[in-house]
């Protein structure tokens, strides 16, 4: 399991780095420069822009790497009401993966704990599925 983030203001990058650390050094990289190996499972962490849109850089990344996507975390701004963090809902429904957390900007301590728990549970047990056809 690896963490892949897309970040504009740095909030998602900082959140991803913190989760990686707290989960015991899980590999982490950005959609731009550290793509996962084909089929390697990963958690995507991204942000929301416009009217609840998926950032173009995230969409481009998913066009070639969706195979390993296991879950999504989306950051947004609470000001947007129903569109708050909506990129996450869109990705979750399009790729049929769980929306692990919706962050208001950089997220809270409890958001971080929740995502770290999710990542840990996918490191041990059913999450790691190298070599199988799932």
């Amino acid at each position: 399991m690896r963490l892949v983030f897309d970040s504009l203001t740095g909030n998602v990058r900082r959140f991803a780095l913190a989760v990686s650390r707290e989960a015991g050094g899980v590999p982490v990289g950005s959609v731009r420069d550290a793509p996962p190996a084909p089929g390697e499972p990963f958690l995507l962490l991204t942000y929301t822009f416009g009217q609840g849109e998926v950032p173009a850089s995230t969409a481009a990344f998913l066009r070639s790497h969706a195979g390993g996507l296991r879950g999504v975390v989306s950051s947004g701004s609470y000001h947007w009401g129903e569109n708050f963090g909506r990129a996450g809902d869109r990705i979750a429904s399009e790729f049929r993966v769980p929306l692990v957390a919706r962050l208001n900007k950089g997220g809270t301590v409890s958001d971080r704990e929740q995502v770290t728990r999710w990542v840990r549970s996918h490191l041990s047990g059913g999450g790691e599925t190298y070599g199988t056809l799932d």
Partner: protein
Amino acid sequence: MTRTPFTATNWSEPEDSFSVTFYEKYTSQLWFPEEIPLSNDAIVWKSLTEAERWTYMHASAGLNALDTLQGEVGMPALRGLVPGHIRKATLQFQGMMEDIHARSYSLMNKTFLSTTEERAVFAWVEAQPQLQFKIAFIGDVFADPDTSDFGLWRKMVVSCMLETALFYSGFYYPLLMAGQGRMVSAGEIFNLIILDEAVHGVYVALLAQERFEALNDAQQAEALAWFDGALDTLYRNELAYTDTLYARVGLTEDVGRFIRFNFNILADNLGLERRFPDEDINPVVLNGIRTRGTTHDFFSAKGSSYAKLNVEPLADEDFAELWPERPAVAHD
């Protein structure tokens, strides 16, 4: 003597990866207060208690002063100092939006208040010590002749403090009321203003992060110490202002929580550590943010729930859908 030639704005080769997106965002969410009729609220206004009306009108008048400061002083100061035609255009657009906000508050006053009440509330703005302190503190940073990276960063930071944190003592009450189903059209205007300010706060914070990155370690430490001091001074001033506005409606504590929540968002935008512990905010206030406007006409639909309408040319497929080549066969 040779002059440096004046250059034109090249939108095909932007100076960074994000300014064009923000500029386009602003053009797509541009709105005017005249688009939202307030007549339903004028009836609700009369049903409010005197204390409720007092808090509402003074919260809004304070916001008018702060948006005037941003439109007239803050955004022009940043626009003058930030290099890049597209960045300058984006900041100037933001300044114009602030002026629209100030006009919105004034139009709401005009709708709900008598001329005598209106004059009294504008006089209150001039005499309110915490409001004037806040304006003077921030105005001094904008006027500071230091235009080094550190000086520019400070100007951007106080701009973000307004957009992302210091407006929220004022936003609280109209959001709470809208969340309770009262003053919902005015609440729609406040929501539109909040969406604008939320994006301004992100944009200027991105510019600020660049200036912060340009500082060396010692300067960054100095910058952070300045930030802590300024935040502490303005936060304490804000609590006193909040007490003046909200004590009579018994909400001082709850507004304090909302202010700390928004100061944490400010820190997130600036890429700094959050200064306050995580707290939940009043769900009724959140409900005020989520309240869907019902007053928009179809063609001017904007806001958090609507996109500006796009036009696309008719294509053959559109007709094929209406008049399929083969007649539809009944399913049985």
